[in-house]
């Protein structure tokens, strides 16, 4: 199989950067999964869709807004009414499409269309608050939940994957611009780009 090329190009510079007076406050990495799919249900079918996703990925999902789950191989979170973003192995979109009857909804493969950037560390919420007008406090944005939001012109879907960790999914074509903005925002607290 042909390896997928990262959109980050030369902007991806492994190592420590920014203000390291207190050590890097963050770790940033590209973590685009092999398989990314958007699964959408018809009105009233979100719970059924959640069940199908759970059956394929072993994740625990509900029909509640913002719901999500993170597993060792997969993750999923609600990105809007009746819609989930589901990640996993390269065959995930096909397996999901096969498992989802047309009566419940549809699956769209976005494996190449989205880039996932992970930001982890005590200052993750602080740095992301520079870019997004959403509340990153754990009470407002609990573990495993997702949010669909925007940074200026860049649409982003964000999942909290740990108390201080977030995966940010952006359109591939914007990934390099977003990466550079994220790194710039993180300079204040120092950051490490994981190679």
């Amino acid at each position: 199989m042909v390896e997928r090329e990262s959109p980050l190009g030369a902007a991806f510079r492994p190592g420590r950067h920014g203000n390291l007076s207190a050590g890097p406050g963050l770790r940033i990495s590209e973590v685009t999964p092999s398989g990314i799919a958007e699964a959408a249900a018809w009105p009233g079918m979100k719970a059924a869709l959640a069940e199908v996703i759970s059956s394929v990925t072993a994740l625990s999902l509900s029909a509640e807004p913002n719901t999500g789950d993170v597993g060792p191989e997969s993750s999923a979170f609600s990105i809007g009414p009746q819609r989930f973003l589901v990640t996993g192995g390269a065959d995930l979109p096909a397996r999901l499409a096969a498992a989802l009857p047309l009566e419940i909804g549809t699956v769209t493969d976005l494996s190449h269309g989205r880039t996932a950037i992970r930001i982890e560390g005590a200052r993750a919420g602080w740095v992301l608050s520079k870019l997004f007008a959403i509340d990153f406090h754990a009470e407002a944005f609990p573990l495993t939940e997702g949010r669909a939001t925007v940074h200026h012109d860049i649409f982003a879907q964000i999942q909290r994957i740990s108390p201080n960790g977030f995966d940010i999914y952006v359109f591939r074509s914007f990934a390099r611009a977003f990466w550079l903005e994220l790194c710039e925002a993180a300079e204040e607290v120092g950051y490490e780009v994981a190679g």
Partner: protein
Amino acid sequence: MSARRATGGGLIDRSQPIRFTFDGKTYTGYAGDTLASALLANGVTLVGRSFKYHRPRGIFTAGIDEPNALVTVLKDGVREPNIPATGIEIYDGLTAESQNRFPSLEFDLAAVNQLAGPLFSAGFYYKTFMGPVIGPLKGTRFWMFCEHFIRRAAGLGRAGYEKDPVRYEKMNAFCDVLVVGAGPAGLMAATEAAKAGKRVILAEQDPRLGGSANWSGEEIGGKKATEWAEVKAAELTALDNVQILTRTTVWGYYDGNNLAAIERVTDHLPAAPIGVPRHRHWSIRAGTVVLATGALERPLVFPGNDRPGVMLAGAAERYAREFGVLPGEKIAVFTNNDSAYRAAAALKEAGAAIVAIIDVRPEISPAARALAEQAGIAPLTGHAVTDTVGKRLTKVMVQHFDAATGRLSGDPRPIEADCLVVSGGWSPAIHLASQAGGAPVWDGKLQAFLPPEPNQKWVGAGAFTGALTTAEALSTGRDAGLKATGKKASRVKLPEVAAPALDPFPAAVFEIKAKGKAFVDLQHDVTADDVRLAHREGFVSVEHLKRYTTLGMATDQGKTSNVPGLAIMADARGLPIEKVGTTRFRPPFSPISIGSLAAERHWRFKPDRLTPMHDWHVKRRARMMEAGLWHRPMIYGEPGETVEQAYAREAAAVRRSVGICDVSTLGKIAVKGPDAAGFLDHVYTNVFSTLPVGKARYGLMLREDGIAFDDGTTWRLGEHEFLMTTTTANAGKVMQHLEYYLDVVWPQLKVHVTSVTDQWAGAAVAGPNARKVLQACVTGTAVDNETLPHMGIVHGEIAGAPVMICRLSFSGELAYEVYCGAGHGRHVWEALMAAGEPFGITPYGLEALGALRIEKGHVTGAEIDGRTTARDLYLDWMLSKKKPFIGSALMDREGQIDWSRLRLVGVISLDGRPLGGGAHIVEKADGNGLGTSIGHVTASCYSPALQKYIGLALVRGGKARHGTRAFLSDPLRKRFGQVEIVSHHFFDPEGKRLHG
């Protein structure tokens, strides 16, 4: 020497001396000093020149309300003017300059303006420079003559032209309770809310929490007030649910409890640490806001009240207690209320001699009298200051005064003083509440405007509410915190306050009417006489008063002048102040940097959107151009080639052999669901439900009003699955259009639309040898004419990467669009380049793409411009008569089918020179090449196929003009010439070439 550093006291760190420069001279202050306090400590009392008259001015306040002491700070190679010295924390190397003076602050030539004072009264500009020219010194022409000199002579500081190199940032914050102001009231409110478990943000504009506790000299909870504030601050800092923002001014209160604040992160540092911004703009979404913004002291208006050495009493108290600075050696106090007595006692305690306390009131409270005794002086009640004397203050003139009638009596007598501290009462800082909505309410006892009833979720506390004592601040602060939490029982014990029982209500005296210039607005040189002149000339509304006199304008926004100005207008009108009203406050509360508003968007107004092959293009030395957010190759120029030569070469290569173009930017939308085909029948003018799986069709969309909206091909990938392509420019709009119809108009349709623009990399391979290139690299499928006919779709692999190929043509040649996963885009592109090498495959950019499509007469956004119909573009063959579609109801309105509409034609330059897009077509040109326009050129190029300059145009009559001649008229570019109007199908009109 007048002002000096006191031998002890203050919250400054005397172990940390700091050197700074003012007007080229080096001084020393201490950590914790402001520039104002440090200058006073060094005996510098003249710090600026006034706006209009260039009168010498000193330091008047100790905070953001400063009207006089505006300076220019030079830092990081940038001049930043009009910064109040009272808000600048000194640091080693700070360099500041005074402003609005030439050649020096001490000797300012423009001070001659004072002699022409009567000329520069209110309305001077309107009266002198507006209207018709009457005589030599009137009217707009005179203004044009004078403007240069006036602008040099009047004004504040001068900004530089250098690019600001420092960083600014934005920050978003959310909280249950935002407490604005960290004085005693704010500290109590924050503590109460925090102890109830609420998420609290406490914003304080000063570097230190505590507000008035830092200079009141009172005791709270058995401790010095400063110590109590320190303990409270430490308690709050230790809590996880409290975020404390010092050096942060909340300057805007918007709808939905959305507040704006500016944090001055590194202004107090010699240099910013890596990545740390200078200013941070905060957008704070608060559940409830506690406004504990305190009160601002007002001056009294009397002749000579602007002389260096005159200062607000509260400011003098603050300099003495917070900074250990005496603003003078022999200090006189002039007041209409008790609070100045506390200042007198503080100044005495710090080492100054109080030479007089002049009080307009006939009687004062016992507590005030006791403070006067502490200050070592018997107050002169029933007196007023009628003038001041000295370049820098040396004397004040005092006279008997009747507060009830405002009359002076007896002879004025001098009192020697080098400093006069003044208090005219206190005005609650209600600016944010006013911004939140509602008219301020006049309080006759306090002689001040109080906040309106809240119409957003805010609660007031402390002096903001008109409760001026510290005990009231603590209790109202606690109550506000409690109310913000929605709890009933407080978790915070109210501390005892040991403070003099001062009378909070001032006498209703704002002005002492005596001979001489008495300033109301020190920053804009507006005098009491100016206000009265405005009244005489009919500008009696407060809004007109402000605009006619400029009272309350400029950087301080009238913080010290608004109420005295209104009082003088009320007096002139014979009305009570509440009947005269007040202007509303608008953001910002105090000046903010434009940089903080732009923040990371400075010089970066939009993100770069890159295709998967972007780096290849750059490496290939393509000249890139912006197309919306996208970066696309314009040409792949060879050394020495012009743009025209490059695109002509590229387009010719496509016609001759084969070319390759990055079309990844085309909008791509997955349309899925059992109703997908029917939905597309609604959306497009032509039918898609009959399209077989594995085939594509060109489609046209109209807007609801029948105007053409967008075009593109849509591919049927499955029975219930389509891939819609849109123009690059309209991808977002089409997506919104589809979502709107699915959500609002036809919610019953089971259709999902998802943007997959970024999922697919696209390469157009076009030219007579295009099929051979594919045959050389595609596996897993044949690409011959049988397997892949025009508008057919196949799936295969190129160099191991899955691809989807559709045979369609924008260039008019045999052509294919090869789609692959975006992550494989460069890999597939390079494989296509390698396969095309034997055929001389040529990458081509947007210019060549444009030339090829113009030769074919294909339309783009230049022709689908929001004004043209399908018929205008001769696309009426796409208007289905078998079904309704969006726009079908209105597309045949009379005006849409009128004969005179502009319709698509081709134009050929007859003089062998280029045609310009946007140039007019005129039927008959006069001697200057001008005439009545019959249309305009939409796109133009040099056509390598025709070897002529050609263009597409929208011309009245369209086809009917084929074969006629007209003129190109482009006066902006001075391009005139004859053109021939022809069919827009310039090249291969039968379409033979695309069938190979």
